[in-house]
C-alpha cells in the first residue's frame, strides 16, 4: 500500500522525465549512426560510425570544446574569487539594512535573461555604441575590436558572464560566512590574529564544502548551458573563435539541418555528462552509495 502510494505520486514526474530526457538520449544515439540531412536526404541512410569519425577528425569540434572548457574554467574562477572577496567585505559591514539592500541588488543581474546579458555585452563592447571604447577613446584615443578580434571576443564574453554570475557566489558565500560560529572568531581576535590569519585558518576551512558545491553547480551550468550570451554578442564569431558546443549543435540541427551530425555531437557531449555525473557522485559518495 505504502509503496504504491509513492510510485503513484512519482508517476507523472517519471513519465515526464522519460519523455524529456530518456527518449532524447535514444534519439541522439540512434540518428548518430545515420546520414540524415533534412535538405538533401529526407530518408536517413545508415552509415555506421562515419559521423563519429568525421566529428573526431574535425577541428570544429575540438575548437568548440576548447572554447566551452576555457569559458567554463575562466568564468567560474573569476566569479568564485570575486564572489568570495565581495562577500568577505560585505560580512564586515554588520548592518542588516545595508546587507539586505546589497543582497537584493545581487539578485538583479543573476535573475536577468541571458539575452539581456548579451545586450549589455553589446552595449559595453560594440565598436560604435560601446561605452568601453568611448572611454578608451576619450582617455587614450584608442579603440579595441572587442567583439571582432578572435583573441579578445571570448574574453569579452567571459567578462559579461562574470558580471552576471558573481552575485550567485556572493549570495551563497555570504550566507555561509554569516553562519560561522562567533566564538572561534572572537577567540582569534583576543589572541591577536590578523584578518588574513582569520580568513586563512578559520573562514576558508569552514567554507570548503560550500566552495566545492557552488563551483561544481556553476561549472556544470556554465559548461552545458552557454548559449544566449554567445549568440547575442558574437554569434560564435569572428569565424569560429567563440563557437561553443550548444551553439554548434543548434546551428547543425536548425540552420543546416544536418541531423546526423547534430545528434553525433549530442551523443558525444552526453558522454561528457556521464563523466560529470561520476565525478559528482564520487564527491558526494556518502550520500549516494
Amino acid at each position, binding site marked *: 500500500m505504502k*509503496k504504491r502510494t*509513492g*510510485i*503513484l*505520486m*512519482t508517476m507523472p*514526474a517519471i513519465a515526464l*522525465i522519460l519523455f*524529456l*530526457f530518456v527518449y*532524447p*538520449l535514444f534519439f*541522439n544515439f540512434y540518428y548518430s549512426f545515420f546520414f540524415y540531412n533534412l535538405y538533401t536526404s529526407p530518408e536517413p541512410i545508415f552509415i555506421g560510425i562515419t559521423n563519429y569519425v568525421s566529428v573526431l577528425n574535425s577541428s570544429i569540434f575540438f575548437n568548440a570544446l576548447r572554447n566551452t572548457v576555457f569559458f567554463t574554467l575562466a568564468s567560474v574562477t573569476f566569479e568564485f574569487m570575486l564572489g568570495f572577496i565581495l562577500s568577505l*567585505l*560585505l560580512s564586515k*559591514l554588520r548592518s542588516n539594512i545595508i546587507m539586505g539592500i*546589497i*543582497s*537584493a541588488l*545581487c*539578485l*538583479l543581474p543573476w*535573475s536577468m*535573461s*541571458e*539575452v*539581456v546579458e548579451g*545586450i*549589455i555585452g*553589446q*552595449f*559595453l563592447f560594440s565598436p560604435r*555604441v*560601446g*561605452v568601453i571604447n568611448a572611454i578608451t577613446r576619450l582617455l587614450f584615443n584608442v579603440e579595441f575590436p572587442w567583439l571582432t578580434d578572435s583573441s579578445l571576443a571570448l574574453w569579452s564574453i567571459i567578462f559579461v558572464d562574470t*558580471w552576471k554570475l558573481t552575485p550567485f557566489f556572493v*549570495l*551563497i558565500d555570504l*550566507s555561509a560566512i554569516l*553562519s560561522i560560529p562567533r566564538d572561534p572568531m572572537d577567540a582569534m581576535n583576543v589572541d591577536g590574529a590578523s584578518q588574513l590569519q582569520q580568513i586563512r585558518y578559520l573562514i576558508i576551512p569552514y567554507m570548503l564544502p560550500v566552495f566545492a*558545491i557552488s563551483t561544481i*553547480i556553476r561549472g*556544470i551550468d556554465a559548461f*552545458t*548551458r552557454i*548559449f544566449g550570451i554567445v*549568440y*547575442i554578442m558574437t554569434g560564435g564569431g569572428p569565424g569560429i573563435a567563440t563557437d561553443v558546443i*550548444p551553439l554548434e549543435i*543548434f546551428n547543425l*540541427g*536548425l540552420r543546416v539541418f544536418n541531423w546526423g551530425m547534430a*545528434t553525433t555531437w*549530442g551523443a558525444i557531449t*552526453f558522454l*561528457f*555528462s556521464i563523466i560529470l*555525473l561520476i565525478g*559528482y557522485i564520487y564527491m558526494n559518495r556518502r550520500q*549516494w552509495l
Partner: protein
Amino acid sequence: MKNFLNYTILALLLFIMLSPVVWLLVLSIKPESAIVSDPLKPFNPTLEHYLSLFKIYKFDTVTLTSAIIALIVLAITIPVSSLAAYGLSRFPFKGSKLFLLLILFCRMIVPAIIILPMYGFFSALGLKGSIWPIVFGHLSWTLPFAILILQSFCEEMPKEMEEAARLDGLSEWGILWKIAFPLMAPGITVIGVVTFNTSWNEFLFAASFSTAYLKTGPVAISSMIAEWTIAWGPLASSGIYWSIPIIIVAILFNRRLIRAFTLRYYG
C-alpha cells in the same frame, strides 16, 4: 582606516555590478541619433523606444505569448514536482534513489541535445509552430531542479504532524492535501518564482521553436540584432522592459529566494 579601505573596495565593486544596468537604462531613454554619435554626450530624454516596442516590435503579443507559456510551465511543474518530491521522501520505493540520481543526471545534460528529438516529436504530431515544444523545452529545465529542491525540502520537514493525522485515520491523500502541502508552501513558492524566471528568460528552446508568428520575449529581443543593422534604442528599452517583472519578483521574494540559497540546493 581599514574600514575606509573596505568601504572603498566595496563601493567600487558595487559600482561595477550596477553600472551596466544603469547604462542600459540611460540608453533606453536616449534618442537613437545620440546613441550612435557619442555614447557619453548629454541628451534630451525620450520614451520613443518604449513606445516603438509596442508599435513596431509587437511586444504586446510577445508578452502575452511568454506569459501563457510561463503559466503553463508553472501549472505543470508545481503539482508534478511537489507530488514527486513528497512521494520520494515519504514513501521511498524500489528504484526511487535511482530515479533521484537520474534527475540529478538530467541537470548535467547539455540541453541543446533535446532540441531535435522535441522538434521531431512535435512535427510528427502536427504541432510544429505551436507553443508546446517551447513549453516542454522549458519543463526540461524546471522539472529536475524543482524536484531536487523540493525533495531536500521535504526531507527536512518534521514528520510528526503527518503521523498524528495518520493515527487519526486521515487517508494518505488527505494528509498530503491538508498537512503536507501547507507545510511545503515556502518551498513551493521559491520553486514557483524560479520556474517563472526560467521560463520568462529562457532562450535556447524559444529560439529553436519560434516562428515569425510565435515569439517569446528573448527571441523578439534577439531578432532586433540583424546582420547589418542593430536598432540600438529599442534594444535597450526591450532589455529594461523584459526585466521589469523579474525585478518585481526579486524584490517581492528576495528574502525567501536568498534563504533558498542556504538550503542544500542540489541533493
